């Protein structure tokens, strides 16, 4: 499905399409880009987009954004995800960047923004803590002011790709007496500071994406505080809004559906009754994708007319993740007995993996995608948001 595009926008879309085709690094086309690439490999595409000036579609031009319209941003997102490119690290460009240029001071902008754009600094997100779950305001990590430093003590968890990070943006409690949301501050911490340590968390698919980050008497210069002390919750919510807009994942779902279709054709003979079952399931999910995409386009059209999308991000997150989970599950089912096999980590090791190559990541993707309905605010929380914000319940 396409937006009704002006010839200018259509030209832009074609330009993006060609640019991806000509420049996306072949080295990044691995069985599972989310788990199989080194830090340097992950940054290859980031640097190419940076050189092109396309690394930060959301950012205003003055800070290094490309100055695109909402429609252009959407087209870029659509083309990159349809082409299956690995999105540049969201924690840097999509999350902390906008917080810094919106709420940071001049010195912070000058120090951090260029390094985020170039990929020189890798950021991770210090929000979740053990026991906090979707209730992020229950932050227990403490930051105590001592002269021109904060002394930070606490434990962050589920920190994605912290093993590569140069910096972490943290929610810390600076006022223990205040109500949960009002005593929180937003602090930028150098991962090389003494007292910061990272411990891997292995997830059920066997991969190492997330970590525990321990902060023990970490001295953080007070100049790394974003905005005002105890106003961190405002900035955190602003950031979460950005996190949730891109979770419809239409391009990703379309790609996964296409490869599922190919697997079904290769695996299941047409005379097998399972063939028809799969065809029906694929069609049903395709319609789910179509409906979600149409909704997304409708929201984009409204946004470009200046209408607030409201809780649309929650809708995208719920349906986008549910749809993708269903696709990974069907794909796992489609490969039959080989669904019993799972790649061993590290994947660079010389482990034998049976069956056709198209099935090699089916098990791990099925397992890994269980996280989608949990993270970024669980789908239950997203439903609460719609119930409250849209339905007024």
């Amino acid at each position, binding site marked *: 499905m396409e937006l009704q595009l002006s010839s200018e926008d259509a030209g832009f879309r074609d330009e993006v399409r060609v640019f991806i085709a000509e420049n996306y690094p072949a080295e990044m086309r691995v069985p599972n880009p989310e788990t199989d690439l080194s830090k340097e490999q992950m940054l290859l595409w980031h640097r190419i987009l940076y050189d092109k000036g396309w690394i930060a579609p959301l950012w205003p031009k003055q800070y290094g954004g490309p100055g695109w319209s909402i429609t252009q941003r959407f087209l870029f997102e659509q083309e990159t995800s349809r082409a299956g490119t690995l999105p540049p690290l969201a924690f840097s460009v999509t999350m902390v960047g906008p917080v810094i240029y919106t709420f940071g001071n001049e010195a912070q902008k000058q120090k951090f923004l260029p390094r985020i754009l170039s990929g020189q600094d890798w950021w991770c997100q210090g929000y*979740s803590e053990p*026991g906090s*779950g*979707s*209730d992020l305001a*229950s932050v227990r990590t403490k930051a105590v002011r001592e002269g021109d430093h904060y002394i930070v003590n606490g434990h962050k*968890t*589920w920190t994605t790709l912290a093993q590569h990070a140069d910096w972490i943006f943290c929610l810390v409690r600076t006022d223990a007496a205040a109500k949960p949301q009002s005593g929180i501050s937003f602090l930028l911490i150098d991962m090389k500071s003494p007292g910061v340590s990272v411990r891997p*968390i*292995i*997830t*059920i698919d*066997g991969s190492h994406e*997330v970590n525990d980050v321990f902060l023990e008497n970490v001295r953080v210069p007070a100049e790394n505080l974003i905005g005002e002390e105890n106003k961190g919750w405002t900035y955190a919510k602003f950031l979460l809004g950005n996190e949730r807009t891109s979770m419809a994942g239409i391009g990703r779902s379309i790609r996964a559906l296409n490869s599922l279709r190919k697997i079904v054709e290769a*695996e*299941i003979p047409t005379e*097998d*009754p*399972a063939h028809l*079952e799969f065809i029906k399931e694929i069609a049903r999910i395709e319609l789910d994708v179509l409906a979600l995409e149409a909704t997304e386009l409708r929201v984009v059209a409204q946004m470009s007319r200046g209408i607030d999308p409201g809780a649309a991000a929650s809708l995208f997150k719920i349906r986008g993740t549910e749809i993708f989970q269903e696709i990974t599950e069907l794909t*796992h*089912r489609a490969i*039959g*007995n*080989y*669904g*019993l*096999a*799972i790649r*061993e980590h590290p994947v660079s090791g010389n*482990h*034998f*993996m*049976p*069956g056709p190559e198209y099935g090699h990541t089916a*098990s791990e993707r*099925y*397992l890994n995608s*269980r*996280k989608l*309905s*949990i*993270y970024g605010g*669980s789908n*239950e929380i997203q*439903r609460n948001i719609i119930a409250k914000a849209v339905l007024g319940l």
Partner: protein
Amino acid sequence: MDIQLTEEQELLRASVQRLLRDQYGFDARRKIVATEQGWSRKHWNSFAELGLLAAPFSEDAGGLGGGPLATMIVMQEFGRHLVVEPFVETVVLCGSLIEHFGSDDQKQQFIPDIIAGDSIWALAWSEKGSRYDLNNVTVTAKQDGSGYILNGEKAAVIGAPWSDWLIVSARTSGDRSDRDGVSLFIVDRRTANLDLQNFRTIDGRSAAEIRLRDVKVGAGALLGTEGNGVFALEQCRDIAIAALCAEAVGAMAELNAVTLEYAKTRKQFGAALGSFQVLQHRMVDMFIAHQEAISLMQHLSLSLVTREPGGSKLASGAKSKIGYAAKFIAEQAVQLHGGMGMSDELNVGHYFKRISSFNIQFGDPAYHVLRYARHN
């Protein structure tokens, strides 16, 4: 209809429970899975000493005569503890094939060793293109004097790397899907020209791709009569499905228990998770799914005891219904545990993976609902 266990069956259950509680906690299991071998001979010997490996066999065959109900009792507890040792493969699948279709010589040669814990078995029925169809066999067995020569490839054979013996389905006549052209052969796993490529399964067990190149076996290797292989496999698949369903029910019981406990203790937004109505209803649905699964599991096991007609149809029905129920419970248990449910350190994800594997073995729930629908 509710199974009242006899004193003997209660004793069996209590002794399995005690053994697993003492020796097969989640950490102990982790260590077993992490070993090079991936399973524990020591625990297998304990199972043998306790009589678990003898329990399902008839007294005539040297067993304890516990039949499908003994298997059901053992497997529920194995499911609760995620036991990786190849009980289903050795005792339930291959054991019942030998008991029901083997010659007297074969029974005498093999069953005492199985019961004593001295031999491990695996059933090589599946192939690359077979999906869940037992007829679909391309491995060939050609007569060679009084014996046979086997050629071809078997796929995703669970437990094969651990096994001493394999039962291999091979085509003695007919084309690729000819039902009456399949026969079963007992093959020494270490025999010449039989090659394994091992891999780890999603639920921490071991499996292999098997290649047979002019593997010679004697006349005594034929299990049952020539051409009777699919019939024999179907019979033992029903028995194995009942065992696997019991295992899934045990896993579901544990998942529901830990999830409920978590919901009662874990606080979020200042209240226990279990106080949120949407989660209460979810857990009620998990409870109902488990109750229904228990009922169908018992129904199936009883019908195998009484050998009622329609048992095979019921086996598919139960595999499908329990499969969907288990999947629902596993997914929700992970969801309700949040990030912790995704962590390899917590047991929840391991039950999820065991259930995923259950839903592949001998066919997924969609396959079995269709088989149920078409079965006379």
